[in-house]
């Protein structure tokens, strides 16, 4: 027997609110009163979920499902560390949403701010709008960012998308900012649109797939144009999630570059060839 928990935003707060208490893990099995009393932080004041949200709960089939209604751009850290269940944010989401996430599904119907899915370990995040900077990246000083799971973004993403990622998949249908996949350790990043400066700089391993030809650093060596078999699989995998990559689908050809030569050159950048 599962639960369906509705959190309805009363009014957008003027200052950001840190709400890492909002995860299916944490709300499961609690009654409305208990949920309302869970702590959130607004600036230096410890407050409660109930100060910002109406809480309604009903029994349902399936896993725990938490639905937030309202523009939550001022709410940081929602879904941080969640490990199961479903968390749906009907509007925008603030910083660090889904950071350190370990499992389950997190859906954002609006835009997501910076550090979406930072250090994520598992599960799936989908964003209907745009995402900010440092999607799936590593916090400063840490050498490994996202280490598993999947982040799917319908819109654009900012700078340093997937930087220092260790494992997992980030797919952005739109454009990405500078330093996409900076110091990528492994894993897969897809960007369908334009990308900013020096994608893949200092990458060690892993794959960056681009829909448009970028200007590459001279530490990326052109190899050949071909149809990688794994692309078909990736395409099918994401199509299975309702996320369709480039037109032309599975039959796409790519230019393959190896790099970054400064870090062993084991990584690859694949650039889609439209014809």
């Amino acid at each position, binding site marked *: 027997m599962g639960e369906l928990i509705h959190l309805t935003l009363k009014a957008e707060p003027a200052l950001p609110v840190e709400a890492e208490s909002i995860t299916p893990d944490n709300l499961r099995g609690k009654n409305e009163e208990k949920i309302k009393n869970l702590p959130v932080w607004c600036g230096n004041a410890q407050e409660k979920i109930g100060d910002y949200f109406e809480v309604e709960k009903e029994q349902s089939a399936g896993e725990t499902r938490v639905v937030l209604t309202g523009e939550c751009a001022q709410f940081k850290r929602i879904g941080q560390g969640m490990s199961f269940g479903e968390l749906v944010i009907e509007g925008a989401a603030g910083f660090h949403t889904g950071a350190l996430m370990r499992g389950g599904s997190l859906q954002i119907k609006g835009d997501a701010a*910076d550090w979406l899915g930072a250090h994520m370990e598992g599960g799936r995040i989908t964003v209907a709008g745009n995402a*900010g*900077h*440092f999607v799936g990246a590593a916090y400063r000083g840490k050498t490994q960012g996202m280490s598993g799971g999947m982040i799917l973004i319908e819109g654009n993403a*900012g*700078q*340093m998308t997937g930087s220092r990622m260790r494992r997992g998949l980030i797919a952005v249908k739109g454009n990405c*900012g*500078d330093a996409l996949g900076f110091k990528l350790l492994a894993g897969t990043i897809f960007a369908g649109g334009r990308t900013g400066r020096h994608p893949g700089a200092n990458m060690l391993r892993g794959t960056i797939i681009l829909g448009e030809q970028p200007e590459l650093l001279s530490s990326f060596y052109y190899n050949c144009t071909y149809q990688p078999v794994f692309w078909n699989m990736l395409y099918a995998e994401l199509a299975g999630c309702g996320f369709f990559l480039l037109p032309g689908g599975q039959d796409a050809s790519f230019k393959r570059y190896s790099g970054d030569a400064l870090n062993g050159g084991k990584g690859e950048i694949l650039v889609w060839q439209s014809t």
Partner: protein
Amino acid sequence: MGSMEGILITVRTSKQGAAMEKGKFSEEYRREIASLTLNPDDFARLQLGEEKRALLKSSAGEVEVICRAAEGPQGIFFLPLGAVANELLDEETHGTGVPDFKGIPVRIAAIAQDKEENYDDHS
């Protein structure tokens, strides 16, 4: 009256620093932070009036500057960091904390004579 597009770089100048220490309301400081340095060819192309005043516009705002020519690359303009340059800066830091202080796309246009007069009226 000429106009052109270019890249703005905000800088710190020793003259600005010295003037600043005399007071930020001093004429010297106020004039220095509104002084745009540009390449002599660009300078000529702008066909500036006697006061050498021009309007500088970025996506964030627009300001009046006083132009002076100096050796340097074409299409790149230099303006000391201060209250004038600040009007042209966007707050976006791309998550780094640092706004784009350098390399801002701008459009510069010489200020027409009548506008200069208006300016004088106001000041």
